[in-house]
Every structure is written in C-alpha cells, then in structure tokens.
C-alpha cells in the first residue's frame, strides 16, 4: 500500500476527530479535568497541550504494543489493562525526564501530566483506534486530532467561564452546574459540524 492515500485518510480522520467526532463533546470523555481546570484560558491551554502530546504519543505506543505484542500472542482482550499500564508508565517517564532536563517545559506542560495520566480520554482514544482498525499513520492523525479537539473544547470552555466569572449565576447552578450546561450547549454546537462533513 502506498503512503499517499493513507496520509490523506489520516488527515480526514484528524479533522473529524477535532470537530465532528470530538472526543470531549461527542463522547464526553476526559470530563474531569475539563470541568476542574477550565477556569482560566492560560491554564486550560497548558493542560490542553499536555493532552495533545500524551494522546498522540500514547496512541502510537499502544498501536505498536497491540500490533506486535498483543495480536501475535492472541491477548487482544487484555488491551484495557495493558493500555492503561503503558499510558501510566509512559506519562510518568515523560514527567520525570522533563522535570529533570527542562525546567521551562516542566513549568509549562509537565505539571499537568499527573493530572491526565488516568484521564479516560487518553484510554478512550487508544481503544477507539483498535476498534476502528486504524493503520499506524491514521492512528497518528487520530491521536493528534483527538488531542487538538480536546484542546479546542477546553479553551472554548475556559473562555466562556472567564466571561461568566462576573455574571450573576443562580446559586444552585454555580460551579459544576453551569459548566455542565455550557458543555451541553457546546456539544450541540459541535453537532453542527457533522453537517459540514456529510458529503465525506
């Protein structure tokens, strides 16, 4: 198989993972940090970038582990456990490495890594890539797209919440309540994107 069509498929998968199949707003995965760390745009960007990085790299890693370890040994059913171990170990490793060698990167990105180790969006993306039978290149596109989609959603949410900070919100809705309602409205808006790609 030549790489050309695969790259274009990876591109399409990437774009749809950002918009129509947004892992946060259509599958509602990775909600915990989405609700917890979306009070300020600046923090949200840092966390979002960490998710992009971890999602892309762990999807690739897990693809390799799946293809070259689990499939030959016929242990596909173990992918839940194996994926989560791989993710946790990898994230810890990365954190230790940048903590040691790049204080700047650690300050911008590293501090968020422990927050997302057990994020279900990360595991979810790895499992989806297996279920949908993506090739390695498409998987890269998918991981990157899912991460970017998550980043986009949390930045938008943080922007909205910053504007809401000075508004008078009914007491019972303050905090998670209003945030969930906003998430619902954003999900509706993102559904609109599926119309754009209908002709695909």
């Amino acid at each position, binding site marked *: 198989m030549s790489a050309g069509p695969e790259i274009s498929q990876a591109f399409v998968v990437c774009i749809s993972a950002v918009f129509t199949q947004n892992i946060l707003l259509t599958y509602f995965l990775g909600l915990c940090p989405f609700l917890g760390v979306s009070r300020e745009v600046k923090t949200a960007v840092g966390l979002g970038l960490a998710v992009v990085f971890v999602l892309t790299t762990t999807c690739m890693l897990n693809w390799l582990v799946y293809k070259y370890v689990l499939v030959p040994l016929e242990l596909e059913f173990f992918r839940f456990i194996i994926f989560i171990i791989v993710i946790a170990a990898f994230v810890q490793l990365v954190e230790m490495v940048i903590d040691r060698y790049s204080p700047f990167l650690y300050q911008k990105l590293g501090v*968020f890594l422990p927050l997302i180790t057990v994020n279900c969006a990360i595991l979810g993306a790895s499992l989806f890539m297996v279920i949908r039978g993506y090739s390695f290149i498409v998987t890269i596109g998918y991981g990157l797209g899912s991460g970017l989609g998550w980043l986009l959603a949390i930045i938008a949410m943080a922007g909205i919440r910053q504007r809401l900070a000075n508004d008078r919100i009914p007491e019972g809705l303050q905090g998670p309540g209003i945030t969930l309602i906003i998430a619902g409205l954003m999900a509706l808006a993102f559904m609109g994107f599926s119309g754009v790609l209908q002709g695909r």
Partner: protein
Amino acid sequence: MILDVLIAVAVVSSIGTVLAALLALCEHFLANYGPCQININDERDISVQGGKPVLSTLVAEKIFIPSACGGRGTCGLCKLKVLEGAGPLLPTEEPFLEKEEVESSVRLSCQVKVRNDLKIEIPPELFAIREYVCKCAEITDLTHDIKQFRFELVEPDRIEFIAGQYIQLLAPVYKKGGEEVYRAYSVSSDPARKDNVETIIRLVPGGICTTYCFDYLKVGDEVRLNGPYGEFRLSDTSAPMVFIAGGSGMAPIKCILHQMKNTGNKRKATYYFGASKVEELFLLNEMREFEAELADFTFVPVVAATGDHENWSGEVGLVTEAVKRNLKDASDHEAYLCGSPGLIDASINVLKELGMTEQAIFYDKFN
C-alpha cells in the same frame, strides 16, 4: 486452556514488570535529587529525600498541612510560604493565589517539589493539628435548636488550643447514599481542660453534620475530629473589648472568657448576646459567674421582642441597637464578633459608625 491462562498471566505480568523496572530505573537516575535539607521557620532543619512534593514530604515527617484534595492541586488549602528554593510559580498554582500571596512567596505545597534545599515557613499552630478519636460524653439541650456537646478525648488524650479556635468534626455516613463530611465548630470549653472539647451547635435544617449531631449521635458514641484551626483569638493589647455574638456564636466567646479567667486578664469587656426571644437565651448562669469572677466583664443579653407576660428587665431590640445605646465612642475599643454573616456585617457597620477602625474588628463568620 490452562496453558492459555498461564501464558496470558505471564505476558501481562512481564509487561508490567518491564515497565515497573523501567520506571524504577528512571526514578533512581532521573528523579533522584539526593538528600535535601528543609529549613522550617528558621528554627529547625529536617533532612529528607528529594523528588517528592513538599506536601507529601512534610506529611512523611508527621507535619500535617491542611489539604482537602489530597495533593491534586484542586483545593488550594495547602498554602505555605516557601522563601527559598521553590523555583518559578507553576500554572497549576496561579488560580489559587492572590497577588499579595504571590509577592510574599506563598505557594501550594502539593505542587512545589523538593529538588534542592528549601527554606519554608509553617504557621506554628499547624504543628499542633492532629486527628483525635473521642467519645461523646455529654449532650445538653440549650434551646429548642441549640445543643452543647462535650467530647472526651481518647486518642490522643490531650489537646492544646488557643481560645477562639475551631475544630472540624467528622460526620460519618449515617444514612444510605450519604457521605462523610467535616464541618467546623468553634470550641467553647475551658482551654485549661485539655482532655475535653466542648462545642455549641445549632441545628441547620437539612444540614448533614448538624442532623447527625442532633438525631444520630448518642452519648458514648465514638467521634472523630481534627484541629485546632483558626486565627480568631484575643489580641495582646489592653484595649477595652466588645464581644457580639448570637446563638451558637457564643462558643468561641465563652472559650475566650475561660481563658481570661485562667490568665487573670483584667481588660474591660462587654458581651452583647443577641436572641430573638427570651427562651432563646442560654448559659445565663455561666455568664453571670464570669461577671462575678472576671475583673471588669459585663454580660448584656438582648432579646428582639418580649412576650406579653414575660418578666424581662434587660435590653430589648436588635443587638446592634443595644451596642449603640451603651457605647458612645468605640474608637479605643476592640471588637470580637461571631455569628451569621448578616449579624457580622450589621455589627461592623455600627462599630464603624461609633469610630472603630476595621483593624480593631475581629470576626468568625459562619457560612
């Protein structure tokens, strides 16, 4: 079949082992920051292994810093001053710190890692914070919705606290689908009685902890609490004092009165105790005893309205009005307030009208 299972188990275990070994190696070579010294309050140095957050490092040294989220950077309670060695402010800390705090090197101790020698400042009272297992020894009805609880300390069996501080009481799960909660209550007992903690609690309809205390807690039950916490306390000055508190807000004031008695404090003090009706007043005899025993203490109960056939010769009206009637110039006074936000805000307004500065008003607001 059995072979399959064995292979599966072996594979998963070996993948796990390889990754764990890899991590252990990395931890040994990368996250090994060697032994570090933490200087606390310029008083003592502790020697710790570097690489972990300050919070967990201190907990391992049996120094408990308040934290509700367990070090995940979401509650913002574990603030400490890290004077040297903390590195730049992290984005995970920013949302929890005010500008003044950043300027005075306050940091979240769960986010700052021990990478080198540190110099930190821990408020001395935090050294005293512990968890206590107690026995509920006495429950006394004070009014129809206020009770006094006495807890006998079991393990540890002594507590040191400053009059005015509060403890956090654990309400265990007492009905299906409930959850454990901690709620803060001021200590009302004599600080000299170190084997007991007393507190005054008003029933909050629907409140998790107060419902537990009123409907479920029985004499003899085991109770858990931790503390002491809080900055509400008597100042070192000799200025005359005004205490204003209503309902269960009497707790810290009563505690302060005990302390004044113990230390032979001769400051002039007047306690305005507000209630809506005569039968809502309580512990009047104890307050009269304080009047007799303290050098210059006056107890002024104030009721908002009296019934027709009630024999009440004391103050009537709002507690803030009574303060105004009795005190013409408060500019050299200090005020200690405890109660609902409404009472406190109203009191602050009145005291300012009477010439008191904001620095001389101390309060403990219930939320």
